[in-house]
């Protein structure tokens, strides 16, 4: 409670000089509707309302897949919202190029975003032709293996410290009627899990070679074959996950029905909501306990170009509210993600978040596929890996061949 009210006060004081006292309704669309996510959004809304404006919530459930077309249609249809969530990276590139989005450079300069936002690559993702078009709000990293301590206890094996131990523990888990690895049915989960395996097992260089340089030879090479072998293991271990949504899969870990899940740090929100304590009820292995690198993907807010001046002003207010230190703390604690400012104190962070912050502090960061690949390539990858995880007759070799083809034509 304290933090929240503090956030409001802070936000208000930061913004006062901008003179945005008039209450303006600003519609904000996003797809954060799961329990932890909604609680995090509430923090943003509270902070914005405290500036005297009003956050009109336009949540659209069903992950980005349902929400994004609606947002894009509305922006291109000439009925834009006040602000909208996108994964930063390349999703909004063309909207910016078409002149539909608002240039935030003024706000960014005034608020010294360049200095406070860490790592700098986050702001780079928002920058097109030297202008800043989005306000990053958090850092999400995918590279986590979440483990149910209860499940391993039941199976009578120690909680693994890295991927190989995890694979080795799988038979014991299975014997105890536990699904070793929960992988939800949605395509992006399979694809994401693979990327995580790849980064952990093949290393940062290979990762960049394939995804940044689009090196198809590398993608078809022996280094990657190792990753595909591991993915094959993962596939075997994930058999019996009969859920769709990621948080249902997380819930399997929470309830001990599954041993572990490869999922981004947002899964933490679900653990927190279920009242579980990191280190006690569940464990987390960043980089699968193999490679201590996390990626700096995340969410950002974009602001469509509006004609209404009042609203345009309110947009500026919102942009700076989102990045205000207090908002950052409140929001990210709820969301389970890391703040984009290097200068805030996350004393309340739990074990797992602290691990993340440490890695961040060490600078072991990497750009994630959202930034490196186009949505199109991502989708093709998702199609491949969701098929791979569901269809045991697709051999790792064939999958690798198709993977290489996708990389060859990637943009």
């Amino acid at each position: 409670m304290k933090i929240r009210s503090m956030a409001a006060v802070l936000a208000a004081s930061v913004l006062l000089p901008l003179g945005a006292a008039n209450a303006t309704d600003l519609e904000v669309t996003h797809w954060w509707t799961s329990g932890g996510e909604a609680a995090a959004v509430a923090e943003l809304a509270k902070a914005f309302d405290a500036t005297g404006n009003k956050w009109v919530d336009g949540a659209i459930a069903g992950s980005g897949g349902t929400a994004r077309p609606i947002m894009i249609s509305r922006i291109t249809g000439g009925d834009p919202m006040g602000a909208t969530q996108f994964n930063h990276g390349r999703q909004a590139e063309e909207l910016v190029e078409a002149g539909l989005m608002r240039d935030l450079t003024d706000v960014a300069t005034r608020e010294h975003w360049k200095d406070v936002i860490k790592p700098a690559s986050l702001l780079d993702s928002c920058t097109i032709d030297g202008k800043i078009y989005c306000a990053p709000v958090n850092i999400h990293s995918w590279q986590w293996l979440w483990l149910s301590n209860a499940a391993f206890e039941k199976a009578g094996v120690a909680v693994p410290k890295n991927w190989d131990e995890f694979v080795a523990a799988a038979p014991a888990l299975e014997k105890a009627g536990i699904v070793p690895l929960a992988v939800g049915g949605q395509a992006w989960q399979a694809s994401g899990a693979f990327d995580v395996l790849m980064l952990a097992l093949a290393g940062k260089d290979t990762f960049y070679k394939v995804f940044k340089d689009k090196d198809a030879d590398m993608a078809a090479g022996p280094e990657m074959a190792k990753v595909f072998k591991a993915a094959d293991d993962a596939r075997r271990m994930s058999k019996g996950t009969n859920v769709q949504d990621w948080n249902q899969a997380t819930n399997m870990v929470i309830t001990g029905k599954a041993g572990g899940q490869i999922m981004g740090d947002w899964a933490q929100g679900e653990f927190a909501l279920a009242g579980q304590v990191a280190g006690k009820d569940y464990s987390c292995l960043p980089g699968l306990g193999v490679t201590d690198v996390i990626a700096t993907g995340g969410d950002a807010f974009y602001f469509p170009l509006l004609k209404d001046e009042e609203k345009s002003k309110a947009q500026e207010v919102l942009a700076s509210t989102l990045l205000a230190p207090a908002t950052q703390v409140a929001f990210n604690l709820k969301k389970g993600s890391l703040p984009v400012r290097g200068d805030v104190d996350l004393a309340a962070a739990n074990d797992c978040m602290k691990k993340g912050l440490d890695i961040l502090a060490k600078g072991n960061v990497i750009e994630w596929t959202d930034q490196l690949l186009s949505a199109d390539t991502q989708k093709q990858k998702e199609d491949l890996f969701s098929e791979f995880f569901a269809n045991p007759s697709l051999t790792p070799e064939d999958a690798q061949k198709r993977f290489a083809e996708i990389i060859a034509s990637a943009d």
Partner: protein
Amino acid sequence: MTGQPHAGRPSQLLRNLNAKIASIPMILTAVVIFLGGTIWTVVYSFTNSKLLPRAKFVGFDQYERLWAAPRWIVSIENLAIYGLFTLVFSLVIGFVLAALMDQKIRFENTFRTIFLYPFALSFIVTGLVWQWILNPEFGVQSVVRALGWESFAFDPLYNSKIVIYGVLIAGLWQGTGLVMCLLLAGLRGIDEDIWKAARVDGIPMWRTYLFIVIPMMRPVFITTLVIIASGIVKVYDLVVAQTSGGPGISSEVPAKYVYDYMFLAQNLGQGFAASTMMLVTVAIIIVPWAYLEFGGRKRA
């Protein structure tokens, strides 16, 4: 003869003027939306449009990629299976139910309402309910297992090989009621004397249906076919709600491919290429038929 010609034939354009004015919404819809939208789609399928349509033409690249995509092939196969079975089963089940309902039965209203009510529910709802009933953990499978048949396995939604049939079960549940209704209405339109004649002639009932009654119901079968077929091509919500195309890509359908590539992958060109392929297929089948059916002179 007083035969000075009439002051001149009124302009052909002005004849039936009111009818033409009244048809403006239809003409606009047909030309601007359906035809215009289609042409627009086809044109942009030859571009490399990403998030926004851009006229940068790349020839047949999108199509080459489309037909090389395993997911598209799976989608087509699924649509073929789903379409064929939906067509056959909804017509057969619908007709059998209609024929049974036509036996002057009691509680006809009750039965009809029961068969028809699913049609009032959206595909989203249908998908959700059946997803649940077919869920192996607490649906049919678990119930049967709880009854003692431990090895019973019925998990169509989690089995790549039969998942499309799981979708089919839900689709039929939602749609056959309407088919039954249409065909029942058709049966009611058959002259009673036909039945009397067939009975006197000693023609077995099934033969009467097959060789006399069904051919007489041609118009109603056509309406039914249009409704069923248009539903098949458009199947999307049901799959999304029930399986999201999974497991893996094993229950993907073309409409979903189109949607996903247009909006998720932000590759409009690819989405348009896929929709063009759908449209072309539909056009090849439908246009000649529709023109014969609706274009020709109906009343000489």
